[in-house]
């Protein structure tokens, strides 16, 4: 394998590890969110907070990556 091919393989391995971690983390988040306690009001509050926090995190991550790529934040 030439040096460029080795570099690609290394990046591929790192990316696969990152993607696996994302899948595992989010699978756990869905499972956890779907387990409800006895208090309906508390459950709805918790789901609302979870959703709001995740949306904020999503925009933050996308904008950080856009900035790093030289793109304007949105």
């Amino acid at each position, binding site marked *: 394998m030439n040096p460029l091919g080795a570099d690609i393989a290394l990046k591929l391995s790192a990316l696969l590890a990152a993607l696996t971690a994302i899948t595992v983390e989010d699978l756990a988040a869905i*499972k956890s969110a779907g*387990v409800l306690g006895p208090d309906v009001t508390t459950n709805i509050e918790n789901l609302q907070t979870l959703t709001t926090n*995740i949306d904020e995190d999503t925009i933050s991550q996308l904008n950080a990556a856009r900035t790093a*790529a030289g793109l304007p934040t949105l």
Partner: protein
Amino acid sequence: MKNWTRPIMMVLLAISMGGTGAMLQVGCAAHRTPNANGSPTAQVTTTEQVNFDNAQIAIHNRAIAQGIVATQQAGFLETEYFDKLSAAQIKITRIHEQLTPLLKNPVAANSAQINDLLSQMKTIAAQMVTDGTAGIKNDQSKQSMLTEVNAISSLANSIISTLTTAGILK
């Protein structure tokens, strides 16, 4: 970009999308923890179910975002396509932020607004497929992308269906 790197990029995109696809299939109806005394648990309410579906949209949307970011940062997604995909995802997320408080206590008075926001999300999701897959020549990658973006639409439809059955949406 060298010609031979494009197929690798497409495979990686397919993997990233496929991974979140596996995650989505696990997403299902919410359930209540068993009572300590063994008595029957109360049914999950309509509002709990739509809020769980809504949370799944957020989780799924973030997973797709993380997959796209990871793929782009590893150098396997061209900036042109990353720009379009990330912009569309931010739009969906901003709309989703408007939808979430309306689902805290969904009422018929908000029916038109809820329908409109869900419809906007589905429209942008469809646009992501057009924009994001425009440069993808590999059919498998294109199909994976399609499946993942459609997942957001499916969850939006699930919310509409649940609220319609409950008589909240007309």
